């Protein structure tokens, strides 16, 4: 029993330490965003790094998921004569869940790892200390541009993924399921609503924070050595991914309640 208690205690301490640290970092980010100078050039650079450079990965992932899901839905529903429902099912699934969640997971893997390792390396080489010693704030110079860039780019990337994912579904629908492309397109347009789109779109702002803040936190908390940079990178990806998938359930539930109220 004692053998289990110690690692569990250490794990719980780490969890509480993480929650407290992320809370304090979020407070500093909010406070320093609304006070003083905003570095638009740095934000633009990060938008390019995070957004533009992730675009090929997002497009390939989205089109593949759209094609696979279209095929699976088609094969499954064909047995019950429900192949015609593939466009509607696929569109709603992509808009509400698959687009936002898969795009965010891809971004967590690519960008979260990049943020944590870059900041961690800056800590090890004393560049973060240098920013402070030169009378400037690492929150303003390093963290805020990355957080704002994620908040700007992720919704755009998800919108592109939604479009491309449905396109992938249409291609498979037309070639493998023998559905008329015009019929497919018409069904997507008429059966998916703006609520479907907004429900997924609204989640992306939360997911952006789930990626950027923990990644910056783990990077900034590297103490010394390249080994810790690697550990921070792994933690950033794992924690961001968990926050996205767990957070998705609660956000879906929340938006479902809100939709019912409207």
């Amino acid at each position, binding site marked *: 029993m004692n053998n289990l208690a110690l690692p569990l205690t250490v794990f719980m301490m780490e969890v509480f330490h993480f929650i407290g640290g992320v809370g304090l970092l979020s407070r500093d980010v909010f406070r320093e965003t609304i006070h003083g100078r905003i570095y638009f050039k740095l934000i633009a650079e990060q938008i390019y790094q995070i957004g533009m450079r992730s675009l090929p990965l997002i497009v390939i992932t989205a089109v593949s998921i759209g094609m696979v899901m279209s095929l699976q839905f088609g094969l499954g529903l064909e047995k019950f004569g429900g192949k015609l429902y593939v466009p509607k099912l696929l569109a709603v699934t992509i808009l509400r869940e698959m687009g936002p969640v898969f795009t965010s997971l891809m971004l967590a893997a690519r960008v979260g790892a990049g943020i944590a390792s870059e900041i961690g390396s800056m800590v090890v*080489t*004393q*560049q973060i*200390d*240098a920013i*402070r*010693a*030169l*009378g*400037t*704030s690492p929150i303003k110079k390093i963290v805020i541009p990355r957080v704002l860039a994620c908040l700007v780019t992720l919704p755009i990337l998800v919108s592109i993924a939604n479009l491309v994912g449905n396109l992938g579904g249409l291609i498979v629908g037309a070639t493998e399921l023998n559905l008329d492309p015009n019929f497919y397109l018409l069904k997507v347009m008429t059966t998916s609503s703006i609520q479907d789109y907004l429900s997924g779109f609204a989640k992306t702002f939360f997911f952006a924070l789930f990626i950027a803040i923990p990644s910056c936190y783990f990077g900034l908390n590297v103490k010394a050595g390249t080994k810790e940079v690697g550990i921070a990178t792994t933690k950033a990806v794992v924690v961001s991914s968990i926050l996205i998938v767990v957070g998705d359930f609660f956000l879906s539930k929340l938006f479902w309640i809100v939709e019912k109220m409207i």
Partner: protein
Amino acid sequence: MSNERNGVIEVVDFHKSFGSKKVHQGVSFYVRKGECLGLIGGSGTGKSVLLRSLVGLEKPDNGQILINGTDITPMNETQLIEVRKKVAYAFQGGALFDSMSVYENLAYPLREHFKFSEQEIAKQIHDQLQEFGLPGSENLLPGNLSGGMQKRVGLARAMMMHPEVVLYDEPTAGLDPYNTKRIQESILNLKAKGVTSILVTHDMPTVYAVCDKVALLLNGKIGEQYTIEKLKQEPAGVMSQFINGESA
């Protein structure tokens, strides 16, 4: 206390621990305007931690750090900005921003704290690189510089805001005699301009060349303190043992 000693930097009863390890247990010293204090001691005695605390990069557990008579220990990051404009820190490895060129590194403090035109910034950087023996290196990235050049660029960047105090963290560590000499000259040039400084080092020839007094950090306190003249004439006690490699 500040007025009596006229200390630009005063450290009073400084305590710092990391976990159960007590690194500093009541360090006290002062440095007058224009003086250079050499801070020596064995590895792991907390010289760099003490130096980092003087610019607010570390917080002491107890004690005071007075810069021009003002205690900086209770200050937050925003309040410390004004202190950091006056107290420059020259990092051991230069700590240059590796994604920026030498020019951008030197321009960084000017763009952050002053409203100079780009022409004025370019002129100041050109003059600074001349002074530190680095002309023509504006467009190089830190990765393309030698260790000695990185340290000199780091020192040049620290001096861009014309600070009253400079803290040197092992500025000559790992350098060849030529680059060591260049760093010594840079420190002496700054000293001639009235800059107060603290030099953390293991390099005794540099201490003899640039410092006015030397303090030995031992067992978490200032073990002994000598003026350079006295040290040259009659080194004794633990300071002598440390310098001669007879004790850590």
